[in-house]
């Protein structure tokens, strides 16, 4: 536990001093605020484009604002998270920053756990805040098709779980290939490519992207199974990262 106490303090200090929390927060909250405004302005923007007609019933509502925000979270915000987290292990290995802690008997398991917790909790909080901020602005700008608070909480949890899955994946890949940027890119590629498998009937429920897809559609058929399976994947990646960090040569 000494390692956990030391490393969680170190991770928090590092995230504050190197603006990691700020980057993740901006990467989520900007879209939460700008999304509803962009939807409201969309007819005006597209007015000048000949041949494009907007059905206001379909797009000018609170639910579409949420769907648009979830889409931004999946496509763009994930990059802010993955590229912030990917340096956490890869850089420490390549720059030999683990030499002193390892030579003092630090436990690799608690190093990995503290890193995972340090990013997962803020991502959960900021994603939830982002979804509620998005809903608040959507409610000011639109009145149709409101989304219940209970569903907003479910969506927050599911999207956060998808992000946390990506955190565990990027931690594992950066411990495996020891390079931050390739680990980050590979994580995003896996995330984007896996979305294609959701259409396969027998396979779809095993793909974590289903959490995003169901959140966007606000229909939760077999979502519990996918959430449970995603948790299993997260735990597996954490165990694999710990195993890797136990056997890695840090110098």
């Amino acid at each position: 536990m000494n390692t956990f106490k030391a490393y969680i303090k170190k991770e928090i200090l590092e995230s504050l001093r190197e603006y990691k929390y700020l980057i993740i927060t901006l990467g989520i909250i900007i879209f939460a605020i700008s999304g509803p405004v962009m939807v409201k302005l969309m007819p005006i923007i597209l007015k000048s484009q000949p041949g494009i007609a907007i059905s206001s019933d379909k797009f000018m509502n609170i639910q579409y604002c949420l769907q648009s925000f979830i889409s931004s979270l999946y496509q763009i915000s994930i990059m802010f998270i993955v590229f912030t987290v990917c340096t956490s292990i890869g850089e420490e290995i390549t720059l030999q920053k683990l030499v002193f802690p390892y030579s003092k008997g630090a436990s690799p398991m608690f190093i990995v756990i503290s890193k995972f917790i340090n990013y997962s909790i803020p991502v959960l909080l900021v994603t939830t805040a982002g979804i509620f901020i998005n809903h608040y602005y959507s409610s000011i700008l639109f009145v149709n098709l409101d989304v219940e608070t209970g569903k907003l909480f479910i969506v927050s949890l599911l999207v956060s779980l998808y992000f946390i899955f990506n955190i565990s994946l990027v931690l594992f890949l950066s411990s495996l290939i020891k390079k931050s940027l390739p680990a980050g890119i590979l994580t995003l590629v896996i995330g984007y490519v896996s979305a294609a498998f959701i259409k396969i009937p027998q396979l779809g429920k095993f793909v974590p992207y289903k959490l995003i897809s169901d959140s966007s559609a606000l229909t939760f058929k077999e979502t519990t199974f996918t959430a449970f399976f995603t948790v299993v994947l997260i735990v597996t990646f954490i165990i694999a990262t710990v195993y890797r960090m136990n056997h890695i040569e840090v110098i």
Partner: protein
Amino acid sequence: MLKIESLTKKYGDFEVLKGISFEVEKGCIYGFLGKNGSGKTTTMNILTGLINYNSGNIFIKGNEFNTNKRQLLKAIGYLPQAPVFYGFMTGNEYLKFIGNLSGMSSKEISIRTDEVLELVDLKTGDAKRKLSGYSGGMKQRFGLAVTLFNHPEILFLDEPTSALDPEGRMEVLSLIENLKSEGITVFLSSHILNDIERVCSEVSILDQGKIIISSNIKELEEKYIQPIFDVEVEGDVSALMETLINMPMIENIKTSNNLLSIYVKNIDEAKKQLLKIILATNSTVLSYNIRKSNLEDIFMRMVIK
């Protein structure tokens, strides 16, 4: 305190360590010598748990290293050649981090911080600065403070004086000598052979992954150190060198400008014959000295053949 048996380490097909064995007694300052790439740092990295090894046995304080690794590492301090810290932390914060890792209380950390900073001659103001702004010498001193922070019983120091100015080097050597009086075992690698000669009581010379000598430094002097004839001649030395190198009593000759350092196999015979032979070649001798060789000479003879 530390016992190594037939330790091997391979990177692919390349065998860095070829079954090295040695023993370090408690409270001893043990010198580890070798050329670049001989395997010194690899040995240190293995003994501090940073890299794995292929075969062999390591015992620290009588316990098998692999099965008690994390526990045994708490008794170890390691100063790598180029220490790396978390640059966003200040010196004080990093020491607190190390203290927390070692399970020390806040009070213990505070007291020990003052002690180690004073020991390595870093000012309190320096410890409030971010580590990314430290100079090479400051990093080396701070690294030593980190290494000593949790009261280790065995210290591994990899080239601890290489980044220091002469004054800093002397201070660090004095500090290492003081550690001996505290009963701390020091395992020291250095290219600066004078440093090893000054502080170490035991020494091993590593070459191409094998230990070629492992001995008490006094025994080593008695066994291997032999006089060298330094002869300075006028003009070109190549003809003289050609004559001497083929003689049975000559072991090796090193030249620097017009100075020849002649290593002989039989000192008594050389005392009688060498000067006569040199004069017989019509060389003009400017100076002729018999010098007692040092550890550097032994190293040169054993390793750089």
